[in-house]
């Protein structure tokens, strides 16, 4: 800017000496003035200021510098951040003490890198059950890996391996975020958390408190259904998810979610996932379609934290496939559903710690109905499982939690580990 001032001043000084036409010179000066003003406005814009902002608003040059983590004026571009969470659980079935189990359920390292303010990559690397090798049943997996680009402050686009935006838990599954040692049954058996798919999505939110997320991507693969295993009964979609591991991707799935948080403390939302899941393979289930929907609400007011969720899924065109599974223990369901209501109360709070007892009641059925078959080959719906969970989350601080709870099942199912039990857990997040 200094340079233009000098340039303009030089012209002004030169003016009285010039013998050129006075009026033409004046016009040129006016044009120059306009250009300089325009440039000044542009330079202000470059510095992120409003063109009309008073210059007195500038921070003093003598203000001492501080760490980038706390000062707004420091650009946050080109940063890489690490985070993580983990949980260790102990389950003790009261009627089958010999089945008591202690497990390092998961250890997760997450990272993000900001290429610039608008473009990020997010990833989560996870190890389950402590040891992964040919002889052990642990798993090592990439749980999320996607690039996100903000197109405007209110919306943007993501692409990669992303969490499906359904329910309360799937996108917020760190152990400090939920009550009870184990994740609730509805959001593991019906919504198969941690559920992720590869694809592209748009996301955004509005000033009124609506946030939305919609995308297209991979889906489950019905070709993976194992009628001999109990896995399809534990979680129909969990048994056929692909997790972007050489995923069959002939048929794209669609998903959409809408959440509203316009009243502080209250959050309500719904989500939908739909797609063909035959994935183009030539087998009796090739036309099958999945439709899964859920609605949820959470109300946090003072020491109270109440939530409820209902989810229901249907699978079409499974009749021919189930005929090939006759005599096998686990046919493909036509409908599956579940719901829960939960109340927690921060009974005691001191310093950073608190003690929060909670109670949760769930009902779910992973085989609520089966496709009609010729007379004599019909499949009876499974009985509905009903579970009461009562316990305590003890937060040493907001990021470290010790948990204890007791679960009461209305019917035992040893193949799925269902039966009255108590659980202990440790979880952390950073």
């Amino acid at each position, binding site marked *: 800017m200094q340079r233009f001032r000098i340039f303009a001043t030089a012209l002004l000084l030169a003016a009285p000496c010039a013998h050129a036409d006075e009026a033409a010179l004046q016009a040129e000066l006016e044009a120059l003035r306009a250009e300089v003003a325009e440039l000044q406005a542009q330079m202000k814009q*470059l510095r992120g200021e409003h063109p009309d902002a008073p210059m007195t608003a500038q921070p003093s040059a003598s203000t001492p510098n501080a760490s980038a983590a*706390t000062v*707004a004026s420091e650009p946050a571009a080109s940063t890489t951040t690490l985070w993580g969470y983990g949980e260790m659980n102990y389950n003790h079935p009261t009627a089958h003490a010999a089945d008591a189990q202690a497990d390092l359920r998961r250890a997760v390292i997450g990272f993000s890198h900001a290429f610039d303010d608008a473009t990020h990559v997010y990833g989560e690397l996870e190890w389950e059950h402590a040891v992964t090798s040919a002889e052990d049943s642990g798993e090592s997996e990439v749980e999320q890996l996607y690039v996100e680009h903000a197109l405007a402050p209110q919306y943007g686009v993501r692409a990669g391996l992303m969490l499906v935006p359904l329910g309360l838990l799937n996108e917020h599954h760190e152990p400090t975020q939920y009550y009870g040692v184990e994740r609730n049954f509805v959001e593991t058996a019906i919504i198969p958390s941690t559920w992720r798919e590869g694809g592209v999505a748009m996301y955004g939110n509005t000033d009124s408190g609506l946030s939305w997320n919609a995308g297209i991507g991979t889906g489950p693969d019905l070709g993976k259904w194992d009628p001999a295993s109990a896995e399809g009964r534990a979680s129909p979609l969990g048994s056929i998810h692909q997790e972007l591991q050489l995923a069959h991707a002939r048929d794209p799935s669609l998903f959409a979610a809408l959440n509203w948080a316009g009243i*502080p403390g209250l959050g309500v939302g719904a989500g939908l996932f739909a797609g063909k899941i035959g994935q183009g393979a030539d087998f009796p289930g090739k036309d099958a379609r999945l439709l899964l929907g859920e609605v949820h609400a959470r109300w946090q007011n003072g020491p109270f934290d109440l939530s409820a969720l209902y989810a229901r899924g249907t699978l079409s065109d499974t009749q021919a496939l189930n005929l090939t599974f006759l005599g096998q223990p686990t046919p493909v369901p036509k409908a599956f559903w579940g719901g829960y209501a939960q109340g927690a109360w921060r009974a005691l709070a001191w310093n950073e710690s608190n003690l929060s007892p909670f109670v949760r009641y769930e009902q779910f059925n992973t085989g609520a109905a089966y496709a009609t078959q010729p007379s004599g080959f019909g499949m009876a719906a499974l009985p509905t499982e009903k579970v009461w969970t009562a316990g305590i989350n003890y937060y040493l601080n907001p990021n470290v939690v010790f948990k204890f709870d007791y679960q009461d099942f209305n019917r035992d199912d040893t193949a799925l580990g269902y039966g009255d039990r108590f659980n202990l857990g440790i979880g952390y997040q950073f």
Partner: protein
Amino acid sequence: MVVRWLIPIGVGAASVAQVAHATQYLTVEQAQRAAFPEATTFESVRANFDAAAIGAPAGWTPRIWQARSGDKLLGWFFADAVIGKSEAIDYALALDASGAVSSLEILQYRESHGSEVRMAPWRKQFVGRTARDPVVLNEDIKNISGATLSCRHLTEGVQRLLKLREHALFVKPVS
């Protein structure tokens, strides 16, 4: 000629700056004028304070202005940043002359998760609070489910600035 040459460069740089600001809701100056529309000047000041006494990390220096209309002090304007989940949230807090919150604005939010803190109903919960009021998430300030970390860190940030206004000695910078 020099001027004409520079215009295309300026325009090119401006569009780069626009991309980099795809996550910016408000500039500091826009927020200042929204908070104190009647102000004639915003005078930058420095705070002398004991970081430990107000629970602030060492080296923490938010930007501070006194909003004035002529000689009359209208209030205080702070621009600071806290970490959301993994990245900085730039925000501005305006206090009236008595030290009560008159507005909280999000200037820039870089992560997509947790950006619900931008919503007006949530930010309005802070209005009227002073350094003498408790400002604790889940007790005095309601949480947004799914944006807990952003809510908690912003709440702590506001609490810190309220204490700063209460305890610090403000001086004009030596230029």
